[in-house]
């Protein structure tokens, strides 16, 4: 793992400029430009908030208020996670020209997908913090934010490497992935409160590393406490394992990429 990270650090200049390019290119030509980084999560938030406060009023968890803020704490990091994975799946195929025609470190591409989405996440964060302050929810525990963020980063990188290399060989994954991410979303306590769950459902949720990451975010930002330490540590261990497996698989398939893309 150290070697892999060292490798990525060697390419940091390249990664840095590709992330910058990704961000610049993404919204070029659109009217709102960079504001889409803020507007996107806001619109998503609005959608869920409308559904649960106007349509499915009874379904909404009563233990967390204001609900929309709770929702926001989960949706923002989830968007980073799911967008990264979805993008990573296609990134090697889209960048086929680079891999086939230029001597180019392929692993840079999924990493760029994850990092550019992380930048969007970080850009959305001030809005969330603004609302948290506005509602008087923000406490000093928010300083612990880097912890779940780091765990999520490692986990996402690992999955991105895994998915991107595999998609080159099995294009089916790209289609399958949107459904998997959809199910994963509902199996992660984002629109509902983990504390409300019990029995079998809770057991299932506990097996999902993203659960612990989300709970950590919600506790740190929304509830002003951090008690889910054990869960986050477990998630961190899983994240490191996933990263290692992803990097290993990517390494094993690396030589085939230029031919199969």
């Amino acid at each position, binding site marked *: 793992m150290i070697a892999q990270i060292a490798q990525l650090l060697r390419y940091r200049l*390249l990664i840095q400029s590709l992330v910058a*390019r990704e961000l*610049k290119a993404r919204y070029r030509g659109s009217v709102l430009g960079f504001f889409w980084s803020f507007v996107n999560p806001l619109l998503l938030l609005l959608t869920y908030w409308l559904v649960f406060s106007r349509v499915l009023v009874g379904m909404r968890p009563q233990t967390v208020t204001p609900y929309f803020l709770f929702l926001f704490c989960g949706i923002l990091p989830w968007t980073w996670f799911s967008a990264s994975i979805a993008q990573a799946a296609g990134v090697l195929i889209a960048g086929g*020209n680079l891999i086939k*025609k*230029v001597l180019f470190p392929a692993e840079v591409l999924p990493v760029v997908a994850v990092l550019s989405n992380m930048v969007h996440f970080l850009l959305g964060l001030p809005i969330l913090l603004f609302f948290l302050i506005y509602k008087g929810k923000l406490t000093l525990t928010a300083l612990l934010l880097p912890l779940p963020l780091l765990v999520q980063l490692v986990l996402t990188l690992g999955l991105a490497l895994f998915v991107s290399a595999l998609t080159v060989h*099995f294009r089916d994954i790209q289609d399958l992935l949107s459904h998997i991410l959809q199910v994963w979303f509902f199996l992660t306590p984002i629109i509902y409160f983990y504390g409300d769950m019990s029995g079998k459902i809770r057991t299932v949720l506990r097996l999902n590393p993203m659960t612990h990451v989300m709970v950590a975010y919600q506790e740190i930002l929304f509830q002003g406490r951090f008690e889910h330490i054990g869960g986050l540590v477990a998630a961190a261990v899983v994240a490191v394992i996933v990263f290692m497996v992803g990097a290993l698989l990517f390494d094993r*398939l690396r*030589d*085939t990429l230029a031919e199969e893309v």
Partner: protein
Amino acid sequence: MSAGPAVVVENVAKVYRRFQHRHQFRTLKSAILTGSLLTDLTPDETFTALDDVSFEVPRGTMFGVIGENGSGKSTLLKLLAGITKPTRGTVKVRGRVSALIELGAGFHPEISGRENVAINGIMLGLTRREIQERFDEIVAFAELERFIDAPVKTYSSGMYMRLGFAVAVHADPDVLLVDEVLAVGDEGFSRKCLDKIGEFRRRGKTIFFVTHSLGLVEKMCDDALWLRKGRMVERGDPKRVVDAYLTYVAGGEEALLARDHAQGAATDPTAGGYREGRWGNREVEITRVRLLDDRDHERHVFVPGESLTVELGVRAAVPVEDFVFGVGIFTSEGVSVYGTNTDLEDYGPEQLDGEARVRFVIERLDLVEGSYLLDIAAHKKDGTPYDYHRGLSAFRVKSHIKDVGLYRPSHHWVFEGPVRLSPPRPRAELDLHDAASDNTTPPHAALDVVAARAQRQAWREAGLSVVLTNGCFDLLHAGHVSLLESARGLGDRLIVAINSDRSVRALKGPQRPIVPEAERAETLLAMECVDGVVTFDEPTPAEVIGALEPDVLVKGADWGEQAIVGRETVETRGGRVVRVPLVPGQSTTALIDRIRRT
């Protein structure tokens, strides 16, 4: 960097694997079920793109690879670039590699040229600082100063490629890998690319060149390799490799078979007939083939309408009475253009004994531009070959007129009635006499820019470097002579660009020029060190310099380095600018003053 070859390829094979779609789908399902994802990634069909290829490329040389489509050229290039790994064998490349495989691969259409240059440079291994230092040079080379801040998606494909090429060559590689890319783009751009590659060569870099352009391989490469179906067929002297390839292309498989067959039947199996594309029993041997122009100079490039003589030296070891000489002309695609022999034309052979010379004279070579191969043969009346040379000699026809087909009948146009056309632009038809002979005769009158350019091109093709200097020269004095002599000393040929009378008047006032332009040209041309004079009308020589692309631009040392017009043009194209010290007290203005006072 240590000495030794820049590229070492040893017993390399590359096997591509093919997966079938249905198979792939099953694999995914079963792979997920059984969890044996990696082991299941086995191919069900393989394709060998390269097999048992070994060679070395010494540092500082240019290595050309030719072969048909699908012969493994690009695969070889990818292996050298490190994009793919060989299935067997090893590939070693020393030093920084830059691959011109696809120009501008990795450009992002939405962001500006400027940002793309930065990112592309990083991909090629440059640091930020290096990119910053070279940025202006890159942009100037790509001629995109005005558009560099526009998004790349608005670029034309030519602009796109120019930028890609500019970045790649400015990455300062030790080994440059070049694919067919140079064939694309307009002529000016291709020429610029070739100039740049020439410059690389002069700087002792190694160039690995994959192309279909056989002429370039012959002209530029030190060493060549012909690949067929992934295997090495011929390796060595570019001319020989290209000839062997052309023989194969012209005759296809059949020719190769015939050659193999003929070799088996040859009386002297050690003669190496196979290699040279030649068969027959050599009772009559063609000892020499020369292509001559109307001045009996040996040449390989001709202009339509010129005369071409094929001269054969033949030798009969024992006297023979049954012999026929034949000549056939083929296009490089193997299409027969013309063929004849002495028998068809009813010459009755009587006797051939010892050495003789046979000339086949084509009075007017009415062919369109292209490369042509010759079959030259001596055989019996019944066709039994004595000595058959297939495609061993080649020539090229070069023309400004890009007409099509094979044959250019001597013709002209007549227009009558209410139809008006402007006459064709006057073009300096290429004069290749000078290019071919070592004794390069200079033109005897001032040239216009177009003619001067053709002349410069001919010199360049003959491998001569061209020096350019400019000025009014309206009163020639000793200072000029020393300047011109030192200028000529900096290259093989010197062109002097002189301001036209109108231009001199505009610059120096109505009193000048003292001597009119035609006389000035004559005087200059009379000097031994001046090989050509070109007149220009503009106030500065920028246009002439741009058109002539001299290897060396010479100015008097009274000019500041920054003030020299055309300096950048010359330098970006790989030439240099030299300031020559002046003889004190010698100047036209001083001379005029002196005359006035007396």
